[in-house]
């Protein structure tokens, strides 16, 4: 995250490859399910042996014996509907919820976040030297309407996507944050409204950032977890 601050986001998980390297973020939507970005995986049918989800830590490189750290292998991957750029990961076992690990709410189907809502992104990705790269960084962003967003993006932003306002200073997600959450505080709950996907440039000043709109795919998420 560029332009963020160290912070806490107990539903944000770190995806780890076979070498134990962090390569993407994810959001814990059920004890055994993580929602992340399709971009993070080379294929919907790739072998997942050795891939893990790490939770319960703020550090990018936690010590193995760090209290609260949970490492859970990924058992299965389900790719979202075409164009969703989403992937659901089923974990080999349920995680333990505690102060460091919490679920994030899913929005109602087709819910549209009101413009002006303050949200936050979180991740261990590239900070371009603006934050502490060893811990989880969080940045605040405000939602804007698709109509406003499409002015700068010349109509390319779809309804299954949503935007946040571009700030004067570079603030936003970057490489290594993909799949992480855009969480908004609504009716005293944190709700997973967006998923970080790659934009043409990271944290471009005065330029709206685009996220996948989770509410469009909530029915798919529930269906996968149910089936």
């Amino acid at each position, binding site marked *: 995250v560029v332009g963020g*601050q*160290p*912070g*806490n*986001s*107990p*539903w944000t998980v770190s995806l780890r*490859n076979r070498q134990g390297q962090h*390569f993407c973020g994810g959001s814990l939507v059920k004890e055994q399910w993580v929602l992340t970005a*399709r*971009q993070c995986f*080379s*294929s*919907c*049918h790739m072998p997942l042996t050795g891939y893990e989800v790490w939770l319960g830590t*703020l550090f990018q490189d936690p010590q193995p014996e760090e209290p609260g750290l949970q490492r859970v292998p990924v058992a*299965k991957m*389900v790719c979202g*509907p*075409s164009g969703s*750029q989403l992937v659901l990961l089923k974990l080999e076992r349920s995680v333990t919820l505690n102060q460091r690990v*919490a*679920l994030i*709410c*899913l*929005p*109602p*189907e*087709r*819910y*549209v976040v009101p413009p002006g809502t303050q949200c936050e992104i979180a991740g261990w990705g*590239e900070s*371009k030297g603006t934050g502490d790269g060893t*811990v989880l960084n*969080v940045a605040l962003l405000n939602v804007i*309407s*698709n*109509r406003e967003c499409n002015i700068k993006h010349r109509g390319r932003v779809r*309804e299954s996507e949503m935007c946040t306002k571009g700030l004067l200073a570079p603030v936003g997600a*970057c*490489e290594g944050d*993909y799949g992480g959450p855009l969480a908004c505080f*609504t*009716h005293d*709950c*944190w*709700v997973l409204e967006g998923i970080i996907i*790659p*934009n*043409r*440039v*990271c944290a*471009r000043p005065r330029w709206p950032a685009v996220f996948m709109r989770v509410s*469009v*795919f909530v*029915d*798919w998420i529930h*269906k996968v977890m*149910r*089936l």
Partner: protein
Amino acid sequence: QRSPLNDFQVLRGTELQHLLHTVVPGPWQEDVADAEECAGRCGPLLDCRAFHYNVSSHGCQLLPWTQNSPHTRLQRSGRCDLFQKKDYIRTCIMDNGVRYRGTIATTTSGLPCQGWSHKFPNDHKYTPTLRNGLEENFCRNPDGDPGGPWCYTTDPAVRFQSCGIKSCREAACIWCNGEDYRGAVDRTESGRECQRWDLQRPHQHPFEPGKYVKVWTTTIAGILTAPSGPGAIPRTRRWRGNSATSPAAVGRSQAQPRHEVTTLNCFRGKGEGYRGTANTTTAGVPCQRWDAQSPHQHRFAPEKYECKDLRENFCRNPDGSEAPWCFTSRPGMRMAFCYQIRRCADDVRTEDCYHGAGEQYRGTVSKTRKGVQCQHWSAQTPHRPQFTPTSAPHSQLEENFCRNPDRDSHGPWCYTMDPGTPFDYCALQRCDRDHQASILDPPDQVLFEKCGKRVDRLDQHRSKLR
């Protein structure tokens, strides 16, 4: 100066298990110096087809079976390497195939072979022995027929017929300069046998297999003694768009990893086939030219990787990384991925269209967007359906046609015949794409489950972190 190991193909870190517990492999022999000595013991024995070599105790265990034998299974092993006689593993023939010990058992016209121990429907003079290898009804060449392995057939009208097994020399091909070739050809163009890569004699060399090992390793063809270059393997003719002979089809079948079809505007898989002109990293940092050594020195010189198209400073994936990447023009950042290049949709071509969410779709498409066949709605396997023709009569769940019994907003779907994929959306697209009801208009009620709570972030934020 051939080594006895030359007759064996190794699978590192692998054990061959026999699933029938009544069958016991030979004892471990600890008095051997190395795998070569094991090979020297197994090679001459007709009932030894493979051996385990214990890399820590340096012992070996002779085996009368290979991975192609019934009731056997390959298993990862932390302590064993599995060496198998090439004659039993090859799927092609060397010379006229008299040493072929594979398991092909049909003739060129598809007739099943008669068992060698059977005298009916065709009587003959051969008696199976360990020496002549006339096993079951596998194609063999006991009389040195120039046409290669053959067999008596089960068709009384056709006494015997050739099996048409390809020569190893013809069966393999390479792409470009063959740097991805992983096949089993072990002869040079002049027919000279190659040295094994894991041996340092007769020629010493710096190419240690351990440096290049993948989890499952085959013997890599040895030092090429023919000064003229990469041996006898023909280069594949350029693919001209006929899918039946598409690179993927040919390449895969001949011991060659899948050859990416090149893409320009998006990338597929790990992006090894990406040939577009994106030249910045995801973070927007300009890429360094591949033919430059500053600010970052590297070994990916374009002339050394002629198949990877390392032109200018375009994002590429020459080394099998997760996605296209480049060295950056920023001294402090050596390399970075180009994830801003979008992924190609890997859906199959859509065959029909539906209106709205497809609840009324009554077409006959029965394939998912990945091309997997749909499961019949009335079937119980491989997936136990929640929606059946009786439970959802209004949806007309016929055969295995795509339907939308649960009014899924993403369109018709089906249970799939892939055991690993319970359901998936179909090879269909929306007919009335432009008339989709907008979600941006009506306000929604907000109903949330038990979730979204956390320790008050602000306190923690203000307090100093650990």
